[in-house]
């Protein structure tokens, strides 16, 4: 069956301050949705709310996966239901090797009923698969022995996020500026990678300022966020327009949302790992 992620009238506040103010968005597995919008419009907040970050408080509305209430689940339960987010600025976990972390995560996501302390997937199988995936992403094997995000360059962090996406094979993934901080070659590699690792079988919500990621992963839908709301939805041509012309037309067309966005940016204090 085709799975569906459905967001209805979503309101999210951070430290009591409203950010999202009634977001509606439905995605089917296999679709690519681009989420664009000026800084501070609430794009990352939507991703964090989908993943269940405790700082992002849902004050109204719903997020459901098929007929299941995602909001009633903890982040790990969401992950095991096939939800994933590639973070803009992932945190370092010193002393924890990428391979050990990934083996644990992969086991849990593939066996959602696994109890703590039960066997992990066999080391030999895991190694083989990890090696294949890393080859596909043109990553050095040494990478698997490094500590999670510890001392990674910006580009390495993004590639590590894509590697996790490849291993976990979620039903739905939010990619939060997975192309930012990368040079042109790296963006091309990242873009191709997402397609190569089976991105077309996932539902992808791609948050981006660039068009390169979208060239290799052309969106079925483009959503524009402004002032905590999705103000316009279109096809791939909308993404191209925003990339070449900017948000001037949108700001003028939705003055209330634009005013709200200005306020949000002015009040903005950094929150969370990837808060904008």
């Amino acid at each position, binding site marked *: 069956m085709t799975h569906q992620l459905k967001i209805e009238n979503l309101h999210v506040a951070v430290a009591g301050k409203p950010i999202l103010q009634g977001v509606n968005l439905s995605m089917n597995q296999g679709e690519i949705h681009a989420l664009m919008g000026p800084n501070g419009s609430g794009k990352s907040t939507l991703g964090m709310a989908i*993943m269940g970050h*405790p700082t992002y408080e849902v004050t109204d509305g719903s997020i459901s996966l098929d007929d299941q209430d995602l909001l009633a689940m903890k982040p790990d339960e969401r*992950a095991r239901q096939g939800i994933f987010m590639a*973070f803009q600025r992932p*945190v370092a976990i010193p002393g924890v090797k990428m391979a050990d972390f990934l083996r644990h995560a992969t086991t*849990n996501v593939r066996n959602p009923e696994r109890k703590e302390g039960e066997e992990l997937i066999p080391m030999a199988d895991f190694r083989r698969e990890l090696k294949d995936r890393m080859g596909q992403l043109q990553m050095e094997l040494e990478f698997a022995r490094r500590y999670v995000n510890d001392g990674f360059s910006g580009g390495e962090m993004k590639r590590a996020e894509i590697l*996790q996406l490849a291993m976990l094979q979620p039903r739905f993934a939010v990619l939060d500026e997975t192309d930012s901080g990368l040079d042109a070659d790296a963006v091309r590699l990242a873009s191709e990678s997402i397609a190569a690792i089976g991105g077309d079988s996932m539902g992808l919500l791609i948050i981006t300022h660039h068009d390169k990621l979208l060239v290799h992963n052309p969106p079925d839908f483009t959503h524009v966020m402004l002032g905590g709301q999705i103000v316009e939805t279109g096809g791939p041509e909308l993404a191209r327009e925003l990339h070449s012309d900017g948000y001037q037309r949108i700001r003028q067309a939705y003055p209330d949302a634009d005013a709200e966005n200005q306020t949000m940016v002015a009040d903005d204090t950094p929150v969370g790992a990837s808060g904008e």
Partner: protein
Amino acid sequence: MATETNVPQPDESLGEINKYDFQTQTDAVFKAEKGLNADIVNQISSMKEEPQWMRDFRLRSLEIFESKPMPSWGGEIGLDFQDIYYYLKPTNEQGRSWDDVPDEIKETFEKLGIPQAEREYLSGVKAQFESEVIYGSLKEDLAKQGVLFTDTDTAIKEHPELIEEYFATIIPPEDNKFAALNSAVWSGGSFIYVPPGVKIEFPLQAYFRINAENMGQFERTLIIVDEGAEVHYVEGCTAPMYSSESLHSAVVEIVCKKGSRCRYTTIQNWANNIYNLVTKRAMAYRDATMEWVDGNLGSQLTMKYPAVYMMEPGARGEILSIAFSGKGQHQDAGAKLVHAAPHTTGQIISKSISKNGGRSSYRGLVRVEKGAHGSRSNVVCDALILDEESRSDTYPYIEIAEQNVSVGHEASVSRIGEEQLFYLTSRGLTEAEASTMIVNGFIEPLVKELPMEYAVELNRLIQLQMEGSVG
């Protein structure tokens, strides 16, 4: 005289149940009366058929113990010294091979989960069960190289010249109250002598545990690493829980002669009611390296500061210390480096974890004496606090009496980050799994220094400590 001990009921006031709590019935051969006086000390010495000088040493140490005040720093010590057994000898003879080891003691090993294959791999296992080393085997090739590895009681009979030359020269009974206590009533412990130039490739190991109610354990270890020799000694403890207070007060003395190298690794997991008050010190001579790797889990109060005195130029001291304090536990652990000669180098890395109201303190001293020019020392302390109720303190003492030296100190305290937990849980790990992974990552610098089986055991212990800690 045989006594039977019953399986104790865990005392709920002690908080979390230690998973290694179990007690094996023991047929004790001899148990001294409770309490401490000259008669008891004489009795212990007689039982052991010791030479007169050792008896005199014990009696002199008892006087020193009685004259010294309790330490005024560290933690609260609520001990009644008259309510403790100071000596208990569990079996008549030393086990010579695995087959000779009594079944109930094998059962204890079984419960500790040390697989048979691993036991056989352990080349020189010496297990101190209650007060005596009851099982020991030493590889023949070690013996051929002249390596001596025995319990200290046996060493007094078989190698009196080495004992008389070195015993209590590194830590005299005057050093501190608990060193004096140990000197008066000591029993068991390991004696190792490595002849010049002999390099032992694999770690020598000893498992021991306390296993009788109200039983103090006062082992005494002496290691002599002769010129150019190398040894790695490992001891590990997991202790069962008792309903009344217990005392562990060991003394470990190490001599590292010119160009030698010694590493002493300890992983201890004491029951939550045990006072663990240990004095450990090494003297490193010209170009010798001494390393302490010290992991402390459990106990009610641990006060332990492994020391390296660098006595001649080129000596090096390294101390890697880790403490995990849970509910009702206070780890006052640290290290001591004394630069007593020029061009000596030292390093202290201390890591502590506190959870469920546990308290960890780092207490460390770096002293550079007059004349020790060109010496360098570096101290790094990292503390991880898992919840609001827990506590971490740092007490660094630095004394420098010389110019042209370099002494560095850095300390950090962090809480398990919400961001780290979120990151790991967003990949499908439960909160408990994520916390354990973060803690294991935190102690990784220590774990990677351990022999494989100890690394596995330490990770297992941490996991037990962490289970149910998040909710």
